[in-house]
């Protein structure tokens, strides 16, 4: 059953792919460490350039996955050193990470977070290896109706888990799905929402979409902080660079508990690193905070969210590889990247394209070791990246965005569209939307419609087919429960306490 992994290591260990895993890890860490650039922005900016290298699908995916996991590593630097989370997944890292840095333990804190990231990611990658082929076997039984129900489930789980405002998460997802309907309809050849523009016949290009939505909106958003002190040269002293074995062992419980928890949360569609970090931190605090040291620079309070968010990052590959449903915004971007290579991730990938599935999983093992090896000795070097001023960073992002979109078709329309989407993304962010649901909706929208229409074609228009099988009925019930329970449970609890009080 692990044939795919053996084949995968065969793919991942070729010199080219090994080099790409290394390059991805390095670039990812650098981009993740840059102020204001999280994993998703890093991938959005670097992805078009990966295409110009003309790599085969599995090599491109190995590079992108390296960037992804590397950026998760890099995101913690500004959390620990500057108390500014690099992305949503690193928010919890600030709680104990920054107090540690203030105590003069910035170096050990960086080292410890690298070790906990490694432990968390390792747990999750092993989980991925064991779990993904099993899930793929179940998923082979999925027909169009089951896939449609699964996507409904993914969207409802995302609305409940992601972000603070479920209504806005849902609206964001709907907007994303709507954007995906632009272009020629594959079923009938009818043009939808193209307004007579030939550039829109193929739909809104994936690269244009993610660069506009993430990179351009980020430039506009950064303007707000342009004149605030960037912390130039204000990095706290790193102290000793290595974390001691004693400190690591002190946190071992926190690490494996949070790694396991993070993996499970990452596997659930729609819930990624940010939820995992928050849940594991509160769990660990409840379990081990006997002296009230959490939040004041407790090493376990740093190890827990770091293990969890890296475990979740790897865990979100499970639904993406086996079901074709990304577990997070960033895996949605990776999924879109695969689709550009005409590979639709899903249960068939393990049998039809084992070199892609296996190569990716094998490269995660390798990348994880590379990351630990890079991050322990070089933490001080990467930390320097934080001092790059915004007036260098922003123009550099602008150049990368323009060239990335221009090289697609040597076409200016795509650049104008990118700017338009950038303004749209900026407005959404200012209005309190998270962009992950939008990109998930955009990536899944086409598949969702295809599956719905395929299912109804099979049944001749009878909608009962959508909930006739046990799997799809279960998914519909789970989706409904997810939407209703968060609203119902607090009311029931309140009623119960009232009864007890009365």
């Amino acid at each position, binding site marked *: 059953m692990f044939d795919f992994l053996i084949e995968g290591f065969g793919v991942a260990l070729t010199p080219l792919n090994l080099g790409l895993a290394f390059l991805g890890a390095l670039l990812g860490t650098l981009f993740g460490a840059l102020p204001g650039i999280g994993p998703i922005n890093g991938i959005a900016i670097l992805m078009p*350039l990966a295409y*110009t*290298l003309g790599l085969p699908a599995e090599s491109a995916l190995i590079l992108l996955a390296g960037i992804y996991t590397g950026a998760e590593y890099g995101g913690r630097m500004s959390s620990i050193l500057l108390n500014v989370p690099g992305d949503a997944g690193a928010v919890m890292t600030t709680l104990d990470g920054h107090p540690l840095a203030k105590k003069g333990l910035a170096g050990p804190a960086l080292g410890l977070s690298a070790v906990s990231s490694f432990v968390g990611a390792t747990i999750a990658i092993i989980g991925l290896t064991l779990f993904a082929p099993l899930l793929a076997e179940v998923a082979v039984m999925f027909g169009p109706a089951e896939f449609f129900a699964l996507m409904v489930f993914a969207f409802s789980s995302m609305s409940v888990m992601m972000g603070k*405002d479920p*209504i*806005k998460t*849902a*609206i964001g997802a*709907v*907007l994303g*799905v*709507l954007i995906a*309907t632009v272009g020629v*309809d594959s*079923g*009938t*050849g*009818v043009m*939808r*929402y193209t307004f007579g523009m030939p550039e829109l016949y193929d739909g809104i290009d994936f690269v244009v979409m993610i660069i506009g939505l993430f990179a*351009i909106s980020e*430039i*506009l958003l*950064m*303007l*707000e902080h*342009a*004149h605030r002190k960037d912390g130039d040269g204000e990095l706290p002293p790193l102290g000793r660079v290595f974390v001691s074995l004693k400190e690591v062992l002190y946190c071992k419980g926190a690490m494996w508990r949070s790694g396991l928890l993070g993996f499970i949360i990452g596997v659930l569609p729609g819930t990624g690193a940010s939820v995992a970090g928050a849940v594991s931190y509160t769990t660990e605090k409840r379990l081990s905070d006997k002296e009230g040291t959490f939040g004041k620079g407790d090493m376990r309070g740093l190890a827990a969210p770091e293990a969890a968010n890296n475990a979740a990052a790897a865990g979100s590959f499970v639904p993406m590889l086996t079901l074709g449903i990304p577990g997070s915004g960033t895996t949605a971007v990776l999924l879109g990247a695969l689709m550009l290579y005409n590979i639709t991730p899903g249960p068939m990938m393990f049998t039809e394209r084992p070199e892609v599935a296996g190569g990716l999983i094998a490269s995660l093992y390798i990348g994880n070791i590379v990351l630990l090896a890079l991050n322990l000795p070089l933490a001080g070097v990467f930390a320097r990246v934080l001092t790059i*001023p*915004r*007036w*260098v960073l*922003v*123009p*550099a992002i*602008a*150049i*990368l965005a*323009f*060239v990335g979109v*221009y*090289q697609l078709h*040597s076409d*200016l329309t795509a*650049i*104008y569209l990118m*700017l338009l989407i*950038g*303004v749209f993304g900026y407005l959404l962010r*200012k*209005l*309190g939307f998270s962009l992950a649901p939008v990109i998930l909706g955009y990536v899944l929208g086409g598949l969702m*419609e295809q599956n*719905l*229409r395929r299912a*109804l*074609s099979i049944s*001749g*228009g009878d909608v009962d087919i959508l909930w006739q099988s046990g799997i799809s009925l279960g998914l519909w019930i789970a989706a409904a429960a997810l939407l209703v329970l968060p609203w119902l449970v607090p009311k029931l609890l309140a009623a119960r306490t009232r009864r007890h009080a009365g």
Partner: protein
Amino acid sequence: MSQVTKPVADRLLGIVLIGLAAFVAVQAINLEVPFSYEPVGPRAFPLGLSILLAGLSLVLIFKPGADGEWPHKALAIRLLLVLGLLLAYAMLFTGLGFIPTSLMVVAALARLFGASNGKALITGVLLSAGSYVLFTEGLGIALPTGTWLAAFI
């Protein structure tokens, strides 16, 4: 206007989104669909989405969240300047060529993001020339050399 305590932004957004939903629905209904054996067709999915969007927007109008922090006047002007710069970058990109356009836009952007004149100019020169070499030599991307200049020669 920033002292207004009623959450205006979300209500306004809800109204705009209902307008969008209506537009999407009208466009979908007006699609001319050729005969096909498929029972669903290209209309149903966007129609369903527009109904969903309208419903969610209604919730937003009746239960709006708090207003976020919106750019004050000085920031709004700089925001428009940055957008104008990016637009100019797009318009001049092929005509004037990659290096001169990037040099000017990078310098202006750096200036807007708080660099001094000298630093902005150096950033412009280094970034435009450096990225040109990286992209064309390193990654083999063909970048525009400028059609306007070529027309003169």
